[in-house]
């Protein structure tokens, strides 16, 4: 009878959890491989395991408590019946709960599928599988807590049982077992004859989880070295970098190919929308006023209000100056900071200074610019751009 109960309880818990475990594990592994390291995924799986661990602890306590009733109170049939009823109930409810959770997850899947296949970088199926697993675990923990409470009530109703229950709860203290520690009562057997200013030492064995954990980290260390320096499955930081740059370029190209943003110094035109000019003004006040002043009068950089331009005053010229910069004169290249659209907005805004009266105008620099179509992009500057972007890899090889 007792054995049966024990088995039914253990089986009920394990069986109810197993399907999801099996389902979640490969899903997690697959998504980790395909989508690099996903912190959200790792923390969710971690949470899942912690909750599982809590369930183990609670189940163990419940098991211990059920012994109290059965061993110490065989004659009390009502209590026995209660325990039995509770356990059966437990066994029945768990799979039912799980089914419910799985259904919810499945429904959520159907509804959301057309929109996007990923949530926080985790494939939708896996995400819901894990989330439903966590929900389920929380429900199980809640249920176990209620059962333990009920059981405790049954036990504490009988004074003689209450004492036994407490003793067992103390003896079976989870951490003692987990750490393979001698109980407080057994301590005198392992007390060493060391005595330092009254400090004595016990000879408890190493906590097994600690010991095997230590071995595990050593094994992990060896595998790590092997992967990165012998099998070369792990990428070196230069290889990782090359891959990251390539992926970035591809994503950018794919985006720009389908985008109205695809404007360059050959195709750029003056914008007319007031929202776009306001956007240009916003960018200008955040990034340019340090050298050109808010009214475009110039300080470190030239005056925009006059008719004179160092590098041409057409929209295409200005776009080019912002995009590639004039490094030797202190104008940096902004192409990595702003999108082409933003540069267009900025260039448009810069042109709007023409004819205004800045407070402290800088003396004219460069040549008088007469609007006659912007200077065409020369072959030289285009080439310079090309070489610049491919520098990174060349330098590496050069060394």
């Amino acid at each position: 009878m007792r054995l049966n109960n024990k088995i039914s309880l253990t089986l009920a818990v394990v069986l109810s959890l197993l399907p999801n475990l099996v389902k979640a594990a490969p899903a997690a592994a697959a998504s980790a491989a395909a989508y690099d390291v996903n912190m959200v995924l790792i923390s969710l799986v971690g949470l899942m395991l912690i909750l599982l661990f809590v369930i183990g602890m609670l189940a163990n306590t419940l098991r211990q408590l059920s012994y109290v009733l059965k061993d110490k109170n065989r004659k009390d049939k009502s209590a026995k019946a209660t325990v039995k009823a509770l356990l059966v109930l437990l066994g029945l409810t768990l799979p039912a709960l799980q089914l419910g959770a799985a259904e919810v997850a499945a429904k959520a899947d159907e509804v959301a599928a057309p929109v996007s296949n990923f949530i926080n970088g985790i494939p939708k199926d896996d995400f819901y599988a894990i989330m439903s697993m966590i929900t389920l675990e929380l429900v199980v923990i809640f249920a176990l807590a209620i059962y333990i409470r009920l059981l405790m009530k049954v036990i504490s109703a009988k004074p003689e049982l209450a004492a036994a229950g407490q003793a067992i709860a103390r003896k079976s203290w989870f951490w003692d077992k987990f750490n393979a520690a001698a109980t407080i009562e057994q301590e005198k057997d392992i007390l060493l004859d060391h005595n330092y200013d009254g400090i004595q030492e016990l000879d408890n064995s190493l906590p097994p989880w600690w010991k095997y954990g230590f071995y595990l980290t050593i094994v992990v260390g060896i595998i790590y070295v092997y992967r990165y320096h012998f099998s070369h499955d792990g990428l070196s930081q230069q290889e990782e970098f090359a891959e990251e740059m390539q992926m970035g370029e591809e994503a950018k190209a794919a985006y720009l190919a389908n985008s109205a943003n695809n404007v360059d110094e050959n195709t750029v035109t003056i914008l007319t929308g007031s929202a776009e000019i306001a956007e240009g003004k916003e960018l200008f006040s955040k990034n340019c006023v340090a050298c050109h002043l808010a009214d475009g009068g110039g300080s470190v950089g030239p005056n925009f209000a006059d008719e004179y331009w160092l590098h041409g005053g057409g929209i295409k010229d200005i776009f080019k100056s912002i995009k590639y910069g004039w490094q030797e004169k202190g104008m940096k290249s902004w192409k990595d900071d702003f999108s082409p659209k933003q540069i267009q907005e900025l260039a448009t805004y810069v042109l709007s200074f023409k004819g205004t009266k800045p407070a402290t105008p800088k003396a004219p620099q460069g040549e008088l610019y007469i609007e006659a179509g912007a200077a065409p992009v020369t072959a030289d500057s285009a080439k310079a751009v090309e070489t610049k972007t491919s520098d990174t890899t060349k330098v590496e090889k050069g060394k």
Partner: protein
Amino acid sequence: MSNSSTTEQGVYGGMHSGSGSFAPPLQTDKFFYDNKIVKWFAYATILWGVVGMLAGILAAFQLVYPVLNFGTAATTFGRVRPVHTNAIIFAFVGNGIFMGVYYSLQRLCKARMFSDALSKLHFWGWQSIIVLAAVTLLAGFTTGKEYAELEWPIDILIALIWVVFGINMFGTILKRRERHLYVAIWFYIATFVTVAMLHIVNSFEIPFSWIKSYSWYAGVQDALVQWWYGHNAVAFFLTTPYLGLMYYFMPKAANRPVYSYRLSIIHFWALIFIYIWAGPHHLLYTALPDWAQTLGTVFSIMLIAPSWGGMLNGLLTLRGAWDKVREEPVLKFMVVAVTAYGMATFEGPMLSLKNVNAISHFTDWTIAHVHVGALGWNGFLTFGILYYLIPKIFRTKLYSVKLANRHFWIGTLGIIFYVVPMYWAGFMQSLAWKEFTPEGTLKYQFLDTVKQMQPFYAMRGVGGVLFLIGALIMVYNLYKTVQAGDVLNEEPAEAAPLTKVFVEHNTAHWHRWIERRPVQMLVFSLVLVAIGGAIEMIPTFMVKSNIPTITSVKPYTPLELQGRDIYIREGCYLCHSQMIRPFRSEVVRYGEYSKAGEFIYDHPFQWGSKRTGPDLARIGGKYPDSWHFNHMYEPASISPGTIMPSYPWLFDNDLDTTITPAKIRAMQTLGVPYAAGYDMKANADLMQQANSIKDNLAKDKITIKSNKEIVALIAYLQRVGTDIKLEQKTTSTIK
């Protein structure tokens, strides 16, 4: 405070003569424990703790309100921050170590300290080092290497006083009346030898004036040595001595036997051996060779269990005494301390994983991590020990347990208020730095992310204030205790001397052998801690391929060298890194990633460890001279919303050119290829370059004399990272 005192009072030695293997003592020696020196170190701990925390709070709020830099050199963040870190590590924790060691060592050895004169010399020597450190750091004399900022004369003084401590400690151990060394003493011995080794090796420097020097090592090698030191300063100054203290004070306060002797043995040896290797995890994704980075990661992972061994042995010692933890403030502080230790030593290895480090490094995440250790582990353990010691030395009860409990809760809140915003801030900022728009441009300007940090920096400051309030409550509480008490400077004790003949049990643990032999223990510890560093450093120094030569990299011009020394003096490296990691987000933001060969003339290296401001590795040529001029004078005029302080004194101070020849000669000694006799020509070149910068500024309507410090700084900033840009141009044209 009453429960733990019973074991101590009464007859020393007589009560605990349970060791069956000893020959029965014929007679006992009567002697006195020196409590006075312990008391002094305790007062020093409290004083410097408060000073260090105040400096920290000032630094914290400077990042929220730049006006708190007060526009003077000595009060600027770049000088306050090293005062804070040095004060907490070497003054607060340092004195805490000596307090705890002087108290426990005497009792564990059943002997008075070896020499009262050495004790006094040690005490006053250490306090004068602290004062000298504070004064020189605020005056701008720094080596520019984090946590090793003190200049060469103080370095020598530190080495001498450390040896005084060592002699005093070892003398006590040698004349002990206890046959075996307790685990706490193993930790003290390992601390002593390892700190000596770290300090001496990392402080190799060549003086060029009575107070200033250049690091012996350069670039990658300097970085490796520095972080071998920096990491193990955490290990052997903040961790191992405090583990030793935990092993004494925790079982004493709980009146419980230590949980596992076997665990002590394995975790002690594993800890000191493995810890040493982990230094390179501070340099992941940098120009340090890959193999060294791997060693850093791998040994950090292996470090989890040995570190946790200490936590487990501490917490499990409290088995059966948790009811006392509820009552006794000493134990409360210790439990939180050990828990914080466990969290920090688990987090550390996680931060050493490359993919986590890619996010956490250079952000406030690291700041949060170290403060879990500093506030939680070191701070709370020190408080616990103080609450234990002071009533004992003053033969009274603690003035108020209630106040101690208040301290406990306010301090705990302070830690939480400190670390949670910093974790959040670090994580957010890192993600913001890495975020791209679909157009392939960076989503945020660096300054945008700095502005986002403000509320978090403010909350962190509040956390620091709470922690300090807690500490001040303790000061008051201990002051009242001292007033009510009756000091026992000379505590009588009695113990039998060791007999010449000793027969060990057959059944005794093998480790007992070395516990009777302090000299062997010292030597063996030294050998063990020397291995990791040697294996990492020797190849980095000897094997050429680790630092590939870049022909275009040339030594600094004299003006740039002078400017670089100003950069170091003002502590720029505390907020600005010079190390672009090979990530898309960094290469797009800052430029080509940093190469090992670029730093061969950098004595010391200036890679930094934190990006409160942007990386500067490729700042050279990015902006005009006038930009730097205006920016250094009033950063907010160029970058509205910045938290960088202004540096007006650089525009008044004349550059000290009399020292240029000495600097050039020192660099020549270190192998920097200036032509023979260049030291005497250097100033002519310097003036020429300064005049060209002056002329350049004049074009932008800026008038400045060419002999001002700002000119040198601009020269340096315009040089940083440009050598490799030249190379790029060359390779492109060749192709």
